[in-house]
């Protein structure tokens, strides 16, 4: 079996972005920062997103089958930090960030520079501690073209390992 500390060190050498995921649940809107995201197909366009099992965002996504994946821009570290922990949601804001519902029925923050509206087509990873949601891209938006994305490595934070 692999040495756990070395495995952790190497897994933290992987490169990730930071994203805020938002989904609707009967109890309100859920938002959480995620980083385990990768595209998974060109045609159709698919993305794979891993969310920790048992979290509000994971349960809301599993139930509603839809969520928005918002790219945190290079100058938006505070936006990512606001959703490291679960926040109580109001009708149109969470953690001080306003959102609006898109035509696809997913909440998108006004602060999001770019986003993907995702629909779950498959769930995987029964043996892992995160659910892998494989998603079709229903729609997307880009408020400010050419804005650079924040890389996890450029922040004081890390995830996983």
């Amino acid at each position, binding site marked *: 079996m692999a040495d756990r500390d070395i495995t952790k060190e190497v897994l933290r050498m992987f490169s990730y972005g930071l994203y805020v995921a938002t989904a609707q649940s009967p109890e309100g809107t859920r938002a959480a920062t995620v980083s385990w995201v990768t595209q*998974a197909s060109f045609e159709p366009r698919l993305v794979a997103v891993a969310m920790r099992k048992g979290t509000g965002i994971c349960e809301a996504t599993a139930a509603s089958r839809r969520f928005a994946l918002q790219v945190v821009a290079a100058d938006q570290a505070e936006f990512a930090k606001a959703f490291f922990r679960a926040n109580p949601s109001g009708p149109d804001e969470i953690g001080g960030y306003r959102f609006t519902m898109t035509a696809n029925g997913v909440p998108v923050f006004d602060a999001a520079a770019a986003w993907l509206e995702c629909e779950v087509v498959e769930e995987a990873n029964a043996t892992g501690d995160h659910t892998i949601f494989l998603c079709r891209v229903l729609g997307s938006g880009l408020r400010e073209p050419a804005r650079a994305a924040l890389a996890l490595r450029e922040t004081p934070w890390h995830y996983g390992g």
Partner: protein
Amino acid sequence: MNPQPSSTDVRNDALRLLTNGLYVLTTCLEDSIHSAAVTWVSQVSVQPPLVLIALRRNSHLAHAVRKARRFALNILATDQQALAAPFFAYQTAPLAAASLSGFAVRPDVGRCPLLTDALGWLECRVAGEPVTPGDHALILGEVTGAGVRRQGQPLTLWMTPWSYGGAPE
């Protein structure tokens, strides 16, 4: 009827804002080493440690990984773009070869060959192949070994002239 708020181009633009690393995957099957650069990679579980990789569905690499039931990811440093470049094409060599595209490998019977110049490596056994309607096969790997060769900044795709995302033009 309103125009669709999401055009094909915007979807591609948003997809191209996803951050990925750039890795060289190596595996061995029978008497050959098989390898290629990969970028659609993510950890997907801490306990047990699992990673997900997406490989073009009918590629030589996907077939080799599926048959070998194991693979290694070699992590490149920011100054190793030249090392990555030849691996944009699938590379194969005899298992006994001392190098792959001019870069040294550590051949080791019973294990995956590794690039000795990489920053670090991760060895995985294939733990599953999640169902996907996509043009890339998904391979779930359970980490069975890892090593750090030296300290350095890992390469992300952003730092290179290359991109792999959105939909092909």
